[in-house]
């Protein structure tokens, strides 16, 4: 049953990265769009994310619940040492979620719209940035349970070049996912060209940030290269990701929307796989070689069993409903 829980944990993280990420990305694209084009960006994106955006963020909550029920030691270690970036991310989530809804549901459309938009756009960039920082900090060995002073316990646990570059990388990946997903939602040539350009641009940014991540890892002594290329599985994942790039580019050139979405999703899945595979089951690596493992720091058996059953039963209800939701809003024709 422990493995059921672990699979759900991984899947929830992946889905949050893909769906929640694309959702953040919508704001990131808006951020990098000239003022002239903003209203168009907004219209298309709102149509695309409106009905499902509430559901996207449930994956984060599922992740947190799995962590605190199943792996309390991991949840509390992160909460204590990464308090500051977690709080920053929470403030981002509050600002973004509320600004999005205020923008769409304010009964009067006046100058306040500009304020909502500004808040939405900035928090869309900041939130995934801190998410990236948090993810990187769990594995970069910067969390130090033996630290004595405030700075090394609560600030340098996450403030370092490696984490910051991973933050930028996450932002660019989210932007890329949003552009890639939205291409299929456009209904005219001009919009399609616009988002295709954005997707290419974001992909290039992601590759550039990726290079920065490796550089920072090297400078900081994080054995990133060894993690990713140290085992056949990692090499395979990275090769597949690289091999899918030409397909992605082809899809973008020819406007093949399904291919673009599949390739983009696949790309990100492989990156997450490569990043987590080598040091599995240790998901938090501490300073001085300590670690927290999914196979050693879990709750008691009965808890894990109950959690696994709750997740399995939950999926029976959720997945069909979720697919139906996505499906019905995909076919735009009103059915009556």
């Amino acid at each position, binding site marked *: 049953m422990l493995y059921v829980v672990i699979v759900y944990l991984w899947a929830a993280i992946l889905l949050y990265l893909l769906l929640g990420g694309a959702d953040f990305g919508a704001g990131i694209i808006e951020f990098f769009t000239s003022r002239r084009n903003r209203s168009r960006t907004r219209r298309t994106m709102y149509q695309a994310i409106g*009905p*499902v955006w*509430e*559901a996207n*963020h*449930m994956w984060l*909550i599922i992740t*947190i*619940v*799995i962590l*605190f*029920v*199943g792996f*309390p*030691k991991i*949840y*509390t270690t*992160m*909460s*204590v040492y990464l*308090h500051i970036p*977690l*709080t920053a991310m*929470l*403030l981002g*989530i*509050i600002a973004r*979620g*509320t600004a*999005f*809804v*205020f923008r*769409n*549901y*304010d*009964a*009067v459309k006046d100058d306040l719209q500009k304020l909502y938009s500004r808040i939405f756009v900035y928090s869309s960039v900041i939130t995934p940035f801190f998410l990236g920082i948090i993810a990187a900090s769990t594995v970069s060995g910067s969390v130090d349970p033996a630290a004595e002073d*405030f700075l090394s*316990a*609560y600030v340098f646990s996450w403030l370092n070049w490696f984490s910051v570059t991973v933050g930028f990388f996450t932002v660019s990946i989210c932007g890329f996912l949003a552009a890639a997903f939205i291409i299929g939602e456009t209904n005219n040539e001009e919009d399609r060209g616009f988002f295709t350009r954005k997707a290419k641009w974001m992909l290039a940014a992601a590759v550039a940030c990726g290079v920065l991540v490796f550089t920072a890892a090297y400078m900081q002594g994080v054995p990133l290269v060894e993690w990713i290329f140290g085992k056949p599985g990692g090499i395979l994942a990275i090769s597949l990701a690289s091999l899918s790039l030409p397909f992605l580019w082809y899809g973008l050139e020819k406007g093949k929307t399904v291919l673009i979405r599949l390739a983009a999703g696949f790309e990100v899945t492989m990156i997450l796989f490569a990043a987590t595979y080598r040091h599995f089951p240790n998901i938090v690596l501490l300073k001085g070689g300590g670690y927290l493992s999914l196979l050693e720091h879990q*709750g*008691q058996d*009965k*808890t894990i069993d*109950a*959690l696994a059953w*709750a*997740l399995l*039963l*939950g999926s029976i*209800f*959720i997945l069909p*409903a*979720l697919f139906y*939701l996505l499906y*019905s*809003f995909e076919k735009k024709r*009103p*059915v*009556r």
Partner: protein
Amino acid sequence: MDDFLAARSQMALSLGFHIIFACIGMVMPFFMAVSHYKWLRTGDEVYKQVTKAWSKGVAIFFATGAVSGTVLSFELGLLWPVFMEHAGPIFGMPFSLEGTAFFIEAIALGFFLYGWDRFNRWFHWVTGVVVGVSGLVSGILVVAANAWMNSPAGFDYVNGQYLNIDPMKAMFNNAWFSQALHMSVAAFVATGFAVAGIHALMMLKGKNIAFHARAFRIAAIFGAVAALLQPLSGDISAKDVAKRQPAKLAAMEAHFHTEEKAPLIIGGIVDEKNGKVDYALRIPGMLSFLAHGNFTAEVTGLDQVPVENRPPIAVTHYAFQVMVGLGMALVLVSLLYFIALWKKKSWLQGRWLLKLFVIATPMGFIAVEAGWTVTEVGRQPWIIHGIMRTADAVTPMPGIVYSFYIFTAVYISLSLIVAFLLYRQIKMVDKLYN
């Protein structure tokens, strides 16, 4: 302010904020479902407008509720890591089931809000009901988790170790039923009177009577029925507290000395130092009856509780008085409304009844906040009753005060914006539906 106090205040602030949105998220879908049903059955367009206007309000509340809830699930760890490390695996069951309930709620809300004219009408109606039912289920589940903190169950506590964990037993602890029942009814009371009050105000201003009268009636009936049930459910809660947390009951009632035929104390000023209540009204034997169903039963007083295990008495007592006082006021308004509906139709034409409803607008929510203050402050100094102290559970990170200031500023601004948006929404009713 020290960090411990800051952590407690931040938790209380976040929960006090979240509960308002949670209540509305649990209850409004039922109001909408009734109005939606009436439109589908009678074809009366005004009911459709009511449903649509309400659903816009709900979208705003839902999003604010969802983000504040997300914040809470992190805050449990950010502020109380020691508590979560031990409690997470024990009381986590309701939270893992709640995930499903939230998810279904979010999916159904997507269908409901964006589904006008897209789906079969009855399918669309059912998605609205599903939003309400899953919201109610999630409310019940979280309250079961909170009940576990009052009435820990499902594990053996041996030498500081938590052994033989049984998550199902933990979820169905002794307090879950009384608390979940009382909370669910409270959500209907609070939301019902708040919504009815706003529509009553608009009727008094003579705006859009057809629209507001229909909306008022739905909300008022829900709220009034719930208000009449609430004292019954509160009585169950009180008897339950008397059994499981005598110290909390004693603090609620400011009952300092263990005695038989204990009097019920109403009003008065609590003097914690000298262990007495000045200027209060006393009804002899009533407390014994309320707590144990017998006018002569002995009620444990605070003198039986070691000083270091006593909750803050004044806060708990005043909060309890506020809740019960408001509860009784709402019972009165509800009775008058039902008399008007059944016997004295002429009262419905008068303005005074509507004015009463306007005055009652915030009462339910104030009672909810007071009730939670009773439950949570009355549990102190324990975070897990009798097992772990709140002071031992707090995060080691210094500087929580700043985090408290930031969150206070955020929540205050959010409340102002939501109030402002709601005001605009209501003002627009004139333009849209006249």
